[in-house]
């Protein structure tokens, strides 16, 4: 029987590790919801965000508060450029699924090759040290960085939820996601909605790469693995359900963390790909939890 403290420690560590996956999945899922596309080019955006931060922090010696927004701006610019000069052109041509798939995948690969040429294939971390002070709470080791990572993730998700609910642009995104043509009849620009989505996704991706790159070594190719995690989370959460996608990636990360108790760490990725395959074949529209039934008296006035 495994010690409960060990199980709790894995739970906490898994949740912290999941923070970047959650943000990446929410970015991918939001884009899929609004544009209807599986945008693999976000793997390129991940690379741009990470290496922009890396270059500013390590080569130019800039502080984090300068590097983070600059990286987000560059990532956003690349996302909007992809939207305007790539996806929009293909939409105008009524291109099919495969064309979009090829375009986004190849664009991501092009960016990865350029980053490989510029930065090489050695794993890089954002900071020289990946250690942070640790406190023992109830027998569980909780790092200061862990709290920071969870705080950033929760903060970003709350901000996104408020944006979608309370701002005009947020409402426009939902309208375009529901029916782009109808939204345009009401004067909402679908093109603007797509660009806003690209910008939001870039901010979420930059935060995720900051969290990921501060603790793990990243190569230009790492983003391809990360995007697959986002794809799986999006599928399991159910397409169009952005925050459920984030929750699904959290659960996936926890399953992956707990799997070390029964299988070797080198098989963990296989677990993820297995989930991807099963998710598609068994749950092509995501896992739907049973809806709570409304109580009769709550539905009746008075």
């Amino acid at each position, binding site marked *: 029987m495994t010690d409960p403290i060990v199980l709790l420690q894995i739970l906490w560590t898994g949740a912290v590790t999941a923070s970047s996956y959650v943000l990446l999945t929410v970015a991918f899922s939001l884009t899929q919801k609004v544009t209807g596309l599986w945008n693999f080019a976000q793997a390129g955006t991940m690379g741009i965000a990470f290496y922009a931060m890396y270059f500013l922090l390590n080569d130019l010696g800039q502080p984090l508060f300068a590097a983070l927004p600059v990286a987000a701006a560059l990532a956003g610019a690349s996302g909007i450029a992809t939207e305007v000069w790539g996806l929009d052109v293909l939409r105008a041509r*009524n291109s099919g699924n495969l064309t979009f798939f090829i375009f986004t995948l190849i664009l991501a690969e092009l960016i990865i090759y350029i980053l490989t040429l510029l930065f090489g294939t050695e794993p890089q971390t954002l900071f020289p040290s990946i250690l942070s002070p640790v406190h023992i709470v109830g027998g569980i080791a909780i790092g200061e960085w862990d709290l920071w990572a969870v705080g950033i993730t929760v903060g970003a998700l709350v901000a996104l939820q408020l944006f979608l609910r309370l701002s005009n642009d947020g409402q426009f995104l939902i309208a375009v996601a529901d*029916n782009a043509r109808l939204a345009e009849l009401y004067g909402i620009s679908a093109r603007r909605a797509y660009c806003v989505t690209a910008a939001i996704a870039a901010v979420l991706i930059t935060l995720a790469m900051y969290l990921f790159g501060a603790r793990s070594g990243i190569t230009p190719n790492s983003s391809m693995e990360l995007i697959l995690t986002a794809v799986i989370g999006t599928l399991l959460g159910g397409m169009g359900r952005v925050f459920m996608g984030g929750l699904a990636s959290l659960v996936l990360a926890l399953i992956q963390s707990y799997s070390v108790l029964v299988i070797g760490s080198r098989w963990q990725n296989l677990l993820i790909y297995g989930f991807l395959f099963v998710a598609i074949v068994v749950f092509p529209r995501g896992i739907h939890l049973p809806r709570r039934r409304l109580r009769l008296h709550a539905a009746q006035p008075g």
Partner: protein
Amino acid sequence: MEYFMSVAVMIAIFVILASSYNLVIGYGGLATVAHPIFFALGAYTAGLLAIHTGLSAPLCIAAGAVVAIAASVLLAASSLRVSGDYLLIASLGFQLGLLQMIRNFEWTGGPGGLTDIPATITGAARTPAYLAICGAAAAVTVAFIAWIVRGPYGRAITAMRDEELAFTALGRNAMNLKIVLFAIGCGIAGIAGGLYAFYYQYLSPEQFDVLQSAAILTMVVLGGMGTTWGPVVGAALLLAVPQAITFLDLPPAIMAPAQGIIFTGLVLVFLFLRPSGLIGASGRGAMPAALGVHDHSGEGA
């Protein structure tokens, strides 16, 4: 001259691979991206049999094709009930999962790759002999696929791809046809893998990853999906052009990404300038649904 012939061998192998993929995706309309894994299964099976059993090369290659067919039936039977984007992603999961297994098992050589695949032909005649063998295999593959798609079986495939509901309503079993078509395409990919294993004598999981999926897909799309000669032109162009910079004598750390940039750059240029491929589809009926009109305005997302 040796260098040019080795590039030609590579092109011939990829003509086989791209043509078989075209049969599945272009003619059959089955949008999977897992084709490299069947190439890998053929290659690893042939390589492992050659190392451990000493069987002759043709038998090893045939065994590779059988394993690829078996795996294709496994994938098809479980995932062909979904289509479009879903099938793309499911096939990606299948490919990456099997690659992860190849990477983790020790008997496949693990991440370091499978070495010591015996040389079946040695000496100065090796590359010319392989060029003749692979060239002949490529020619036979192209002719075989052209024969399939121009006959009654090909008409059934086209009918199934374009109007599956009507096809089923006529009493035909679309699922069986898809599985058989998929098995033929993947079996040919397995043969290409066997040839690859014996020529290069070294296999590693990275040779069959997502980039390889994108590369083969691109060869088919840029050459002309659903056409006989499209994959031939696509494979030749996309493999030959990046080789041009090998004469610049750049260090490997620059050469590999530079070739990748040329390759992906070419793909993007052609995708926008020549979206129907260099050898365009011969009419609306030859245009697979995957490349045809599709609504991406986000409705119902």
